[in-house]
């Protein structure tokens, strides 16, 4: 048994490590069972008292993927073209906009970097032109003389920092929302993957993630001018119906397309009311070229953020006229909190501005007493209260909210800051908790059945050798779990499939060895010599076979996303663990048995 001392040392060390890493998982599940049995009040008390211990256990537990415990997985993309456009600020012109549009499309088509495409497109239009005219930035050392290459580097840095900032902001928002163990990671140079275990309210999460939190204070549209516009719009569509009338008598019953979808309003700042389904149609009608030409230049139209309850309980959104010019933005907000209107007990968000904001807010309100000021968030009007007096203490509030949840989310979004660029949801996957529980059960059943069948087959086919391989197999599964826990990997359903598959393939190394031992025995060698030769000769095939599979697992890990990564990780852990248990552990056991009793070991 020369050299086996070292092997036994390795096995003991490996086992000890595995137990160390799996211990929290075992204790955690025992704790959970214990807490299940307590009454809710006892449980709350227990959780309070043992908070630190529980927290520690939880973070060191082998975590389950969203497909097993239920939850929401979202992939977001930072709108890089919008970001680059906004960086140019007032310098942006038609040429730049065109270049950005072309580059955005091309980078999508060719799967290339947007900024590289943008520089190439810009230079193709005029080789001597410099992008620096859009992006002068003294703080970043970008002058008029900067080359296009320098600008490209500058823009890429900006993109990177925008992505980092977006991740920070989302983390803050998600933390405040109160998800346990959220995972927020960067993917590539413009994507963010967010995983939220146990989340049920999808709609709320979507708005939480996507809201850019661009808060604006704008004056309402000039009442007289805007009313004139609205009247001419209605007249235009009335004429439109009449002309259709005369042109084709069959269409004499044709409705006015605008009045079909928009309820006219009498207020000086409103175009009208529409149901949620009709809002898109209304915008189609109002953004036609003819209508746009009638519109006062300094004015734009925006929807209310929340609907009013119309007749018969149907929801109606208001279309409101506001000035194009932004008077004040959310940068000036220092604090925000949920308050309740003392008279009606309706929630609202009260905001405090910094001194500069307060000064401006005072000037704006002072100059517009008696007129409405619209409070706009992400392009939707939350409220447009009339200014009664000059407000000089820098306070303002957002009313017209749809309940306390919305108020809290809004405070959360305002306080975590504005996203540098809009985010788009590219992918969203949600798994319910029950489906997750079913998957766990299915996975466990598969592991147990698979293990059972393979174990019995091995004993029948290889006798003692098979039994030893089975022992190795059992340890192998425990090792895999230990490795996963040690690397803080997440166990997913494909991961469980990976374990099941490993059970089938893990015996391969032993099959190679045992078959080789049988071959050696046939050549007339003694048992001991056959074992020696069997292990030695099988080694190169075992190494080659496993190295190639390991490569495949690495490729799966680098290219796959989400659950596939989980599969790849278990496959890798499975290869390492099965090599160790099939080569080292079985050898020690086989050696021990052959030494103890000369004929104790049989390979069938």
């Amino acid at each position, binding site marked *: 048994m020369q050299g086996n001392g070292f092997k036994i040392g390795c096995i003991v060390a490996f086992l000890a490590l595995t137990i160390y890493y799996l211990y929290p998982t075992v204790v955690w599940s025992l704790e959970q069972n214990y807490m299940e049995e307590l009454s809710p009040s006892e449980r709350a008390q227990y959780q309070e008292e043992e908070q630190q211990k529980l927290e520690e256990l939880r973070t060191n537990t082998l975590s389950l993927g969203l*497909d097993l415990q239920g939850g929401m997985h979202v*992939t977001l993309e930072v709108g890089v073209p919008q970001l680059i456009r906004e960086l140019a600020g007032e310098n942006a012109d038609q040429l730049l906009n065109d270049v950005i549009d072309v580059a955005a499309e091309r980078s999508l088509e060719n799967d290339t970097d947007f900024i590289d495409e943008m520089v190439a497109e810009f230079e193709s239009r005029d080789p001597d032109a410099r992008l620096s005219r859009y992006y002068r930035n003294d703080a970043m050392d970008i002058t008029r003389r900067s080359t296009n290459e320098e600008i490209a580097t500058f823009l890429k840095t900006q993109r990177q920092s925008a992505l980092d900032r977006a991740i920070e902001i989302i983390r803050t928002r998600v933390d405040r929302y109160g998800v346990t163990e959220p995972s927020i990671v960067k993917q590539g140079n413009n994507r963010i993957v967010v995983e939220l275990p146990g989340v049920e309210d999808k709609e709320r999460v979507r708005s939480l993630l996507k809201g850019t939190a661009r808060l604006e204070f704008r004056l309402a549209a000039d009442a007289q001018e805007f009313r004139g516009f609205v009247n001419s719009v209605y007249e235009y569509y009335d004429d439109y119906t009449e002309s259709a009338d005369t042109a084709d008598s069959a269409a004499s019953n044709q409705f006015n397309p605008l009045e079909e979808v928009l309820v006219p309003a009498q207020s000086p700042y409103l175009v009208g009311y529409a149901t949620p389904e009709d809002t898109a149609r209304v915008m189609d009608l109002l953004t036609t070229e003819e209508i746009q030409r009638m519109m006062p230049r300094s004015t734009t139209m925006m929807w209310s953020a929340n609907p009013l309850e119309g007749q018969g309980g149907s929801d109606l959104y208001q279309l409101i006229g506001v000035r194009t010019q932004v008077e004040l933005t959310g940068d000036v907000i220092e604090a925000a909190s949920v308050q309740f209107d003392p008279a009606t007990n309706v929630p609202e968000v009260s905001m405090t501005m910094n001194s500069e904001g307060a000064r401006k807010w005072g000037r704006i309100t002072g100059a517009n007493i008696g007129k409405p000021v619209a409070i706009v968030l992400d392009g939707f009007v939350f409220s447009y209260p009339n200014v009664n007096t000059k407000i000089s203490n820098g306070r303002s509030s957002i009313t017209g909210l749809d309940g306390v949840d919305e108020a809290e989310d809004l405070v959360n979004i305002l306080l975590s800051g504005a996203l540098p660029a809009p985010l788009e949801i590219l992918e969203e996957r949600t798994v319910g908790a029950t*489906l997750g529980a079913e998957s766990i059960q299915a996975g466990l059943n598969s592991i147990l059945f698979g293990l059972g069948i393979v174990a019995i087959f091995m004993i029948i086919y290889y006798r003692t050798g098979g039994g030893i391989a089975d022992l190795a197999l059992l340890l192998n599964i425990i090792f895999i779990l230990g490795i996963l826990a040690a690397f803080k990997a997440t166990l997913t359903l494909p991961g469980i499939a990976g374990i099941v598959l490993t059970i089938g393939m893990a015996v391969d190394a032993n099959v190679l060895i045992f078959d080789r031992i049988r071959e050696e025995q046939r050549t007339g060698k003694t048992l001991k010599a056959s074992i020696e030769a069997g292990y030695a000769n099988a080694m190169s*095939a075992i190494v080659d076979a496993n190295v*190639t599979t390991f490569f*495949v697992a690495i490729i799966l890990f680098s290219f796959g996303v989400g659950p596939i990564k989980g*599969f790849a990780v278990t496959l890798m852990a499975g290869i390492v663990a099965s090599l160790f248990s099939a080569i080292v552990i079985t050898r020690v056991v086989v050696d021990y048995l052959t030494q103890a009793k000369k004929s104790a070991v049989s390979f069938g």
Partner: protein
Amino acid sequence: MRWFETPNFDFNGARKVAYIFSAILFLASLGAILTKGLQYGIDFKGGKEFVLDFENPVSVVDMRSDLSVPLGATPELKLFGSDSEILIRTDNEQPISEVQQIITSSMTELYPDNPFTVIKTDVVGPRFAEDLKSGALQAIIYAIVIIFIYILIRFRNWTFSAGAVAALIHDVVIVLGIFTLMADLVPFSLQVDQAIIAAFLTIVGYSLNDTVVVFDRIRENSNVHKGMDFMPMVNKSLNDTLSRTVITSITTLFVVTVLFIFGGEVLKGFSFALLIGIVLGTYSSLFVASSLVVELEARTKKS
């Protein structure tokens, strides 16, 4: 128990038959893929998927006609595991919350006495689906290239690399072909999605496992039996390792069958791919990979 104690099958002698068999399967698969096209799942096609779990069994046909009008286009509907769980796939481009709203209100109307819950939703944007697809393709290509290089380094012989890689491509194309041909015949989803790509790469790894063990024996035998002709030596190596090849295939087939039966609906297509892949991978390492090496060796020797 001992199977194939001292087998003496003429694998290389049977290679002509194997070539014809493989060629038919390969061409039929290629034909099916090219004419019928791969049935992409939501990962590679994009769209919105919902799984509803009803309290009592429901009729897919009723649902399909009832959802066609409000969803705009005919949605894809199928049972998801049991006959009270339904998967609905639609290309409707409205925001997910509105699409879900349409589905839930239509279903409540259709089955007022059969309450349901939405147990799973998946939304993949068309652009993201495109990215996933090119990622998957890259993964398979990289896997094949790396394997070619590894075998080249380990065995110092390009014919071994070529034989192994040809066998891999053979296996993957035929599994894809079977997927395409059987998609409508089996009661579970055989759409090509990310999980299937993982299964393919596993098949690649498995088939290679088998092949490499045989190659390893060929290398060993060519050192031991120096004067032997190449073809009989390959045949001897195949026979030497046959017991191991069969036993490992059996244990792996056991567990994959278990996974197929007990693994749940989500893993059905995945384990089905592995099931075919293991049978095919075993066949290809016995009849295709080493035969091609023999063929290529003979040709390079002549010239």
